[in-house]
């Protein structure tokens, strides 16, 4: 008992909070949260890179088209993107996608549009002279982009990507809404079952989320300091 709070409910269900019914059942809790975050982040990185490159295209139609998509998704709440996915994906694919994959699709679409802005800013942040120099040495625009500009831009973007991972971990909590048994969903189930310990349960998972996110926040700060130091010499 700490200040009238009783944490035995946490202790008794610790493995349920961390891995759900695994290995006798599907993975849940913290394990599923991290799985959703990692898979969605990898896919969003690719999606963001793709959309970001489209948005700096020299073809106006492609540039405007991708910018419209990006701005539309950025103007919507993530919850809305999730509902759209649940509504549209089965209609488009004739059903069949699991709830976890629908959430991954929604998180990926949403985060890609934010990542694409990071990618775009990263590319535009490389001095113009570099592209000109690359082209004058005989590279095509595409070659110059992929071999000269992008590698430098990506290196500068690493801290922002780590930050995006923190947002991603927080965003996976919305999977609760559609019944994917990640940490928040496990917590609400536990709350419904025991009824008496909401403060303890939600405080506990808040701390778990905090530990995961804070570790990555610190990593991104460290990377930022390091890259600032590297630029200064």
């Amino acid at each position: 008992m700490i200040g009238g709070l009783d944490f035995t409910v946490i202790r008794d269900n610790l493995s349920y909070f961390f891995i759900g019914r695994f290995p006798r059942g599907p993975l849940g809790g913290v394990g599923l949260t991290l799985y959703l975050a990692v898979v969605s982040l990898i896919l969003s990185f690719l999606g963001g890179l793709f959309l970001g490159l489209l948005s700096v295209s020299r073809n106006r139609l492609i540039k405007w088209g991708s910018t419209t998509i990006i701005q539309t998704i950025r103007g919507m709440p993530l919850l809305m993107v999730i509902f759209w996915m649940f509504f549209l994906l089965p209609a488009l694919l004739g059903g069949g996608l699991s709830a976890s994959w629908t959430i991954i699709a929604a998180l990926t679409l949403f985060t890609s549009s934010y990542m694409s802005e990071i990618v775009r800013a990263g590319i535009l942040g490389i001095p113009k002279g570099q592209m000109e120099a690359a082209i004058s040495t005989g590279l095509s625009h595409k070659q110059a982009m992929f071999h000269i500009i992008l590698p430098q831009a990506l290196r500068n973007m690493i801290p922002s990507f780590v930050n995006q991972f923190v947002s991603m971990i927080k965003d996976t909590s919305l999977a609760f809404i559609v019944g994917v048994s990640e940490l928040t969903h496990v917590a609400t189930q536990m709350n419904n079952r025991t009824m008496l310990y909401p403060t303890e349960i939600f405080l506990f998972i808040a701390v778990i989320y905090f530990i995961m996110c804070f570790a990555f926040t610190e990593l991104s700060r460290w990377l930022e300091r390091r890259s600032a130091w590297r630029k200064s010499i």
Partner: protein
Amino acid sequence: MNYRFDWAIVTSGKYFDWLASGLYVTIKLSVVSIALSFLVGLVIAMMRMSHVRPVRWFAHGYLEFFRNTPLLVQIFFWYFGSYKILPQAVNDWLVAQDFEFAAAVIALTIYTSAFIAEDIRSGVRSIPKEQMEAARSSGFSYVRSMRYIILPQAVRLTIPPLINQFLNLMKNSSLAMTIGVAELMYQARQVESYTFKGFEAFSAATIVYLALSFLITGLMTLYDKKVLQPMKGH
């Protein structure tokens, strides 16, 4: 595709009224929460820059903890779990109000204020140090220099990130549906479950969210063009 569109249900009648009342609640929730989070954020930012170490540490802990925890979990915490940590009198008062709305406001305010505090702090830090020194040497106290010299300039620079936070808050307010606040997203889902016209209901809500977002972004661009650029002498 044998889905039959029926846009009439969301453009007039009962369901239109539901969506309109949802929009009203979304705006009310956003405006109340942003006003409160500005005040709380300002206090936390001042504490974060305080010369008293425990005060500074408290503010730092507040910032890190609430920024690195999902908003949804915070909403659940205040809605389900606050009664064990808040004094009885505060609880009774909250329950006598619209409790769902109050819990959403508390969660949104605390979450957003942590971001706003950092925006304000970086605004203050961008004001040259000499200004504070000049103010102090002309006889102003620390608090008065802050109040009359530093903050008025810093707030002007902080407005674009603040507008951005307002935009985030407006979108985040959709999470209040999980505890039964009848805002726009809640009503759109309600219309869907009564009519099975999810496509129309979600389209209508999406258009409204986009319109609000573009309006807020437009304000930011206008502010930048009319106030900030002339200030920087461009």
